[in-house]
């Protein structure tokens, strides 16, 4: 077990211009922590993981595992185990051989390998498949073998590169919970890469959001959700996504169509010291509600209703400055408005409104 640190670590791919796949990444992962790297494709999250594994060069900065600089140490000297998206099981070996391979290379005695493999297999419910080859296993079983191969080694760090993305939806949710529980039980530092923000939110002790190789924010799931550091994080975390619109400011607050959302004094002060006439206004679907006919509210034309049972999401357009803008509103699942209907929408709680700089996207603290 060990802590992990990225010290201004960069990976630059040659080209014209060169691509900074991971740019000055500064990240400390505590011993035993479950850290999720999340971001859209091309954000550098996989590259960052591979740098830690030693499968990708570190062009600038350093990487430390357990306080030791491993920047130039080959993968086999890093005491890490990795679960690949494709699982990368060795097709010519049985499940038991796959799981025991790393131990065999280390020169562990046959009996000890057998015991450890048996123990891990029991943990993962693989005991009756130990003599099979990978091709005779289902997708979920292969995934568990890949996990088992990592566990058997008792490494100081687990690295997981989208390990669930080849599973079907139901199995994914199930395995997600199993991995999180397993990690808690073993207490091994884990770095987990995913593009799925639901996985990130449900599994991680902390979540690091990346975009274009740059770390946007690293915080607990709650913090990310409640206080996103910038407009990108705000839009990326949460499903359906936060409504983010650039709207004009007035003396009282943010002006949406037919609705002035009152903002705190400090927020307005901050905007005026920065000389802003507009802000990027962010509000999550659940912070909006349908308003009564006599209340103040935005006019929204319903374009789509997604009914999920308990809740329903209403997609509709609101004219802001004459331009139709799409908004998503969460409403009660039993009484959703109909397609084409015009409804009024108001903000449920103005303290849950997020404001961002219209150009830089940085959060305006309120």
């Amino acid at each position, binding site marked *: 077990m060990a802590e992990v640190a990225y010290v201004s670590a960069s990976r630059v791919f040659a080209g014209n211009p060169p691509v900074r796949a991971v740019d000055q990444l500064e990240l400390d992962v505590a011993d035993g922590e479950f850290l999720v790297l999340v971001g859209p494709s091309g954000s550098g999250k996989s590259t960052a993981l591979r740098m830690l594994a030693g499968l990708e060069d570190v062009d600038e900065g350093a990487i430390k595992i357990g306080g030791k600089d491993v920047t130039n140490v080959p993968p086999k000297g890093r005491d890490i185990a990795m679960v690949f998206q494709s699982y*990368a099981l060795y097709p*010519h070996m049985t499940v038991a051989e796959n799981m025991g*391979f790393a131990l065999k290379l280390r020169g562990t005695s046959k009996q000890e390998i057998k015991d450890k493999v048996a123990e891990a297999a029991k943990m993962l419910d693989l005991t009756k498949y130990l003599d099979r080859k990978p091709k005779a296993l289902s997708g979920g079983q292969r995934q568990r073998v890949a996990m088992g191969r990592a566990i058997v080694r008792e490494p100081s760090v687990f690295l997981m590169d989208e390990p669930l993305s080849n599973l079907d939806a139901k199995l994914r949710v199930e395995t997600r919970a199993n991995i999180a529980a397993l990690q808690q039980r073993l207490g091994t530092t884990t770095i987990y890469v995913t593009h799925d923000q639901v996985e990130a939110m449900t599994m991680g002790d902390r979540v690091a959001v990346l975009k274009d190789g740059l770390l946007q924010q690293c915080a607990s799931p709650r913090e990310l959700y409640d206080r996103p550091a910038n407009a990108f994080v705000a839009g990326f975390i949460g499903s359906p996504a936060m409504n983010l619109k650039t709207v004009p400011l007035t003396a009282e607050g943010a002006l949406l169509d037919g609705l002035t959302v009152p903002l705190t004094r400090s927020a307005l002060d901050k905007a005026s010291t920065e000389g802003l006439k507009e802000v990027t206004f962010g509000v999550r679907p659940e912070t909006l509600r349908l308003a009564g006919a006599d209340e103040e509210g935005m006019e929204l034309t319903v374009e789509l209703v997604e009914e999920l049972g308990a809740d329903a999401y209403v997609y509709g357009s609101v004219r802001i400055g004459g331009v139709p803008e799409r908004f998503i509103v969460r409403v009660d699942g039993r009484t959703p408005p109909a397609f084409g209907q015009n409804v009024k929408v108001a903000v449920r709680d103005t303290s849950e409104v997020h404001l961002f700089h219209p150009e830089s996207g940085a959060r305006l603290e309120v």
Partner: protein
Amino acid sequence: MTIESLPIQVQAARVSLRGKRSMGRSVALHATLTVASLIAVFPVFWVLVTSFKPDARAVAPTIRLFDESSLANYRDVLSGQQGDFLAWVLNSVEIALLTTLIAVFLSATTGYAVSRFRFPGSRKLLLSFLIAQMFPFAVLIVPLFNVLLSLGLQGTGIGLVLVYCTTSVPFCTYMLKGYFDTIPTDIDESGRVDGLSPFGVFWRLVLPLARPGLAVTAFYAFLTAWGEVAFASAFLSASDESKTLAVGLQVFVQQNRVEWGHLAAASILVSIPAVAVFYLVQRFLVTGLAAGAVKG
């Protein structure tokens, strides 16, 4: 996974096709295939039949399956009446095996390097391998002769092995590169994380997985060396005991007459090792050739 379920679907499609084929079409199809098989098998069969006949009866005007047939031809050939047949066998085995060994080793390591590592000129390297293949053998004989002469290897078996390697290594490299490309690089990386050195990855993971490809490569290299005549007659010394089988067979073809019976018996003996090698690798042939061909 979907890819693995594919062949089953294809099989299913075939089965249903067979079920639907009409009687007439079925007869026509089988007749055509039978004729084609007969055309392919007959020459070999006739050589076998001829090998038991005395030279005079082999080309007799009345064609019979058995005509004073005996094992005499085989006895003559093996006893070295016409030339040192057993020495030729040894030479051929030695040269073909050595060629196979060197060609497989060189093309496996080269193919792996070209498939996995990015280095300046890797594409050009691969193209340059084809250059030697672009010339007809006849054109290559003189330059290769000069090279062997300056290396002091003219007339030696090792020289001939090198010559065979110039033709088989490039081709085998291409084939194996294509095969290695089908092995996901995740496996390599997984092996490195598990504690293998780069050579360990090649030796313990990639080579075992590439066994079908290696078998095909070995088969190809063996056959190139085993049955080759032009290079062997040009580069080996003329003395009888240094000939390979393919060259040695020519003793049965004399200026005024051909000893058909003896030639046929010797040919059958020559083909036995080739058939044996084929038998060893045949279960890999289809997958190996297909993989190499599709992603070459």
